């Protein structure tokens, strides 16, 4: 009877311990996809440019907003005096090069924290910061349809790659929005918490990586599909943080980072499609949903404006999947294809992207 009682006790204790997975402080992120082992486009070791989008501290990731400001998750528990390493320092096996001077904002509801920092060695020359921040959900495009949704990325220190890669770049798409949360299919896991989530099109900060549904090494943690809604991870969207953050409003008035002053950063990339129908070549151009007009510039002026003599307004064909497509009804001539100059404008008439290309004849 006594042996049976002890056995029952052991069984009860074992069940109580293994029946749940308490969330670990400082490593709230869960879930990942195994595809990165065969498809490096979704996750790979961050290159010398990509490493500048992250900083590391005590099991979490972070994003520098300026030389003196860092953004991370509330649950990462950054404190005054906390030591951090920039991406460059991690890449070069350097020492601590960032120290937290004070916490400026700490919001457990939205799970974000902004701290003031200083460098203990000269800031790396390639250090970069987001030029824009999303201040409204309309700034991005989300879709639950396969392969659709705004392309986004985060750079950080996931536990599963801790011994394999120094820093990990991971990308995916925004799948849907729910309140302050943005759900995406980026493969993130414990250690990615606090990392900035940026729009691939223009490095606009759109969120912070926060959580998911499975922890590292939990059964099935690396067996999920990017198209399975049950596997999607999430972050806090910046348009939920921005209205309550005096620091972000000051650093990004009108959504643009004051660190860069008047420096031009494109808001959209301009892509070109050239097709032939018989002997005629037809042009299509794609830009982001922020675009309102695309001009085909004359050879003498670039970038041109609507008032420029010879500038041609391309017709809006369709707006879909977060992009706008423009066409030219007239066929393209050989000389036009030798130097194609395109400029995209937003509704206010500001240039938001430009592209100059040539067609190199097939050999």
């Amino acid at each position, binding site marked *: 009877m006594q042996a049976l009682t002890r056995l029952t006790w052991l069984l*009860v204790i074992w069940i109580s311990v293994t029946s749940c997975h308490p969330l670990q402080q400082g490593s709230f992120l869960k879930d990942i996809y195994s595809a990165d082992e065969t498809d490096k486009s979704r996750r790979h070791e961050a290159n010398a440019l990509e490493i500048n989008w992250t900083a590391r501290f005590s099991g979490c990731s972070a994003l520098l907003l300026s030389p003196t400001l860092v953004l991370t998750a509330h649950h990462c528990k950054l404190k005054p005096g906390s030591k951090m390493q920039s991406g460059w320092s991690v890449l070069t096996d350097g020492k601590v090069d960032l120290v937290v001077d004070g916490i400026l904002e700490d919001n457990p509801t939205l799970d974000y924290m902004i701290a003031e920092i200083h460098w203990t060695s000269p800031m790396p020359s390639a250090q970069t910061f987001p030029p824009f921040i999303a201040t409204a959900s309309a700034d991005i495009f989300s879709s*639950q349809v396969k392969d659709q949704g705004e392309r986004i990325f985060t750079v950080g220190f996931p536990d599963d790659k801790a011994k394999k890669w120094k820093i990990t770049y991971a990308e995916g798409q925004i799948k849907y929005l729910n309140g302050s949360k943005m759900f995406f299919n980026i493969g993130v896991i414990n250690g990615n918490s606090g990392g900035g989530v940026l729009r691939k099109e223009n490095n606009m900060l759109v969120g912070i990586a926060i959580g998911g549904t499975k922890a590292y090494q939990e059964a099935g943690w690396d067996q999920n599909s990017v198209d399975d809604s049950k596997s999607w991870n999430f972050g806090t969207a910046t348009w939920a943080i921005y209205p309550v953050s005096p620091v972000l409003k000051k650093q990004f008035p009108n959504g643009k980072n004051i660190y860069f002053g008047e420096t031009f950063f494109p808001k959209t990339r301009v892509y070109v499609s050239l097709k032939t129908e018989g002997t005629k070549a037809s042009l299509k151009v794609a830009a982001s949903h922020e675009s309102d007009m695309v001009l085909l510039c004359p050879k003498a002026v670039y970038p041109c404006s609507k008032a420029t003599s010879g500038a041609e307004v391309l017709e809006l064909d369709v707006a879909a*999947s977060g992009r706008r497509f423009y066409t030219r009804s007239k066929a393209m001539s050989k000389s036009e294809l030798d130097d194609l100059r395109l400029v995209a404008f937003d509704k206010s008439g500001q240039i938001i992207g430009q*592209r100059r290309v040539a*067609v190199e004849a097939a050999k």
Partner: protein
Amino acid sequence: MRKTFILRFGIIGIIALSPVACKKKLVTPVQKSADSQAPLLKSDQWQGTEDQIDPHMGKIKTLD
């Protein structure tokens, strides 16, 4: 003996199922956002996220 056993079993059970011992896993119902209702492109259409050109025309070379 049996009463003590049942009492202990009950206490352990309550602790094991309490929110303190086991934070609930995040389960958020998947809801379609307004954005996802926007027009979509067919998968075989040009998505406008990279250049495309008829191969016999040549290659697109960026100049700026």
